[in-house]
């Protein structure tokens, strides 16, 4: 058992290293000139040379990479961000909670709605709910986030004036305990801040949740249908047990485990979509910084953000494995 996890860990490390090398090389090979962009048009050649030397851009690529890795482990720094003018690690630490909060709220929304929808669609095959479910699934993945975000802002922000257009909070942010505004405001019982945060997060979260909602609901539906043909469910039904119990306790358990892998990997995917959503809603998160960094050729920023996403991917992988063991005793017992 320990060996298994050790192997997995090694593999994960390999992937992270691979990604870091890939992105590192990619950004260094760029034809553009970020130094020029960062210093502005009045920079002299000496200034540019000086900066280039400071950023070690005149050293060979593998030396740069070694220095980079050393910086991470020795000093916890990810390099200077050209657009933020401070260390990328600092920037990410500041902005990541915002993105995480957004993604988690979106995932929560998606799960709350998609699971009952999927179960109901599966149990009423061919019926109204099933058709609705299918349409929702197809529509949900077809929206370009920048457009649906815009439409949301138009309708709910402008027209109905129900939600604010952009930003994470209108007033002052609550005391920083976890970095999650929603949680923090609850913890210090600040109702106003909670409502403020909620009304700000709802727009981007809803838009971000549409894709996963569509995917999960179809998945749950398919898995529930598979479950319904299983013999042990027939045995359950033969005892006359209430349908709802059979569905939500006995069938959903297995259906959900089967969906876990896909659901888990939706999280890194959402991080990608967040690049667009955060831009549209001016959400002060890591993804918006990432989008800006890419446009500005801020390579430290780009590599830093990609590394974090890669780590998230790896973390999700591990989390899924652990969850599987919890949910499926077969794996637990076999080990």
């Amino acid at each position, binding site marked *: 058992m320990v060996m298994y996890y050790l192997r997995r860990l090694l593999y994960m490390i*390999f*992937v992270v290293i*691979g*990604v870091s090398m*890939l*992105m590192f090389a*990619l*950004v260094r*090979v*760029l*034809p*553009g000139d970020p130094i020029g962009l960062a210093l502005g048009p009045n920079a002299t050649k000496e200034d540019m040379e000086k900066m280039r030397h400071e950023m070690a851009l005149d050293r060979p690529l593998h030396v740069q990479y070694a220095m980079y890795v050393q910086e991470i482990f020795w000093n916890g720094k990810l390099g200077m961000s050209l657009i933020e003018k401070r260390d990328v690690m600092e920037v990410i630490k500041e902005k990541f909670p915002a993105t995480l909060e957004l993604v988690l709220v979106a995932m929560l929304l998606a799960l709350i709605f998609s699971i009952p929808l999927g179960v109901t669609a599966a149990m009423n095959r061919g019926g109204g709910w099933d058709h609705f479910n*299918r*349409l929702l699934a*197809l*529509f949900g*993945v*077809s*929206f*370009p*986030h*920048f*457009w*649906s975000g*815009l*439409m949301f*802002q*138009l309708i709910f922000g*402008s*027209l109905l004036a129900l939600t604010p257009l952009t930003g994470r909070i209108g007033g002052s942010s609550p005391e920083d305990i976890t970095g999650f505004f929603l949680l923090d405001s609850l913890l210090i019982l600040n109702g106003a801040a909670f409502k403020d945060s909620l009304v700000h997060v709802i727009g981007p979260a809803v838009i971000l949740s549409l894709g996963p909602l569509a995917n999960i609901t179809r998945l749950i539906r398919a898995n529930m249908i598979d479950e319904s043909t299983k013999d042990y469910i027939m045995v359950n039904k033969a005892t006359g047990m209430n349908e709802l119990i059979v569905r939500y306790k006995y069938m959903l358990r297995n259906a959900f485990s089967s969906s876990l892998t*896909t659901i888990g990997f939706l999280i*890194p*995917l959402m*991080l*990608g*979509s967040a*690049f*667009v959503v955060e*831009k549209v809603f001016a959400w002060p998160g890591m993804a918006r910084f*990432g*989008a800006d960094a*890419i*446009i500005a*050729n801020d390579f430290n920023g*780009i590599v830093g*953000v*990609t590394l974090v*996403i*890669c780590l998230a*991917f*790896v973390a999700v992988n591990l989390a899924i494995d652990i969850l599987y063991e919890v949910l499926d005793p077969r794996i637990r017992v076999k080990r």
Partner: protein
Amino acid sequence: MKEAALLKRKEGLARSWVRFRKNPLSMAGLTFLALITLAAILAPWIAPYPQDASLGVHFDKALSPPSREHLFGTDEAGRDILSRLLFGARISLMLAVIVLGISFSIGVPLGIIAGYYGGAVDEIIMRVTDVFSSIPALVMAMAVCVLLRPSLENSMIAIALVWWRSFCRLAYGETLSLKQEDFVTVSRSLGSSSPYIMFREILPNMTSSLLVKLTLDAGYAILVGTSISYLGAGASPPTPEWGIMVAEGRHSLPGSWWASLFPGLAIFLTVLSFNLLGDGLRDFFDVKVE
């Protein structure tokens, strides 16, 4: 004997087509796609103001609402949105074709090779694929595109370079299960060479999965492509690309809503049709493809 088999196959195909026809969603998708493709091809002839697609500017007509002269209104440079949409269709559809063409050609052979040979080849190819897979497509494509210098063509190349990984994985998975099948063993015992088995025996058996994937991915590729352009890393003005049209129209919100609404709607409907069609095909072939 062969005729009987052929007949049975035609019968089977005919039965499947009837089944496919019964699905109103897929038919809707197919119809709409056909319409869009037609519109895209005929754009230069059916667009009411073809010059608006590139250099025509009429600032006097800037941001006029939908009317009889301009069915979808005009944008901030006074250009007819409908015409630009039609030309935008060309761009997006072309993007889908190019991106999928490239990534298919890279990913599928790699996947088949990895699956067929196994061992070290398998490990290397699939590990590389894993590394490429751990970053969301949009992020990586944007990064690559920007590094190559932001432009429409480069965005296509960038997306293709990112997209091959899922084709690789699909082909890999299919190869793994197909190579256990009897016809492979028979073929091998008859002395067929490996490339022959891989590409003339195994590959044709995954056409249904590949077809479904191509259809669905066409939609997603367009989503990624337009997103890249929206963020400013792809097409640049005055190209009538749907993504930057939405970005440009954003400045005039909420007053001139048509400038952003219609291009986005076009994207949505196109992607939706690909999804409808792909979903229908998935049922039709009875395949499990995400």
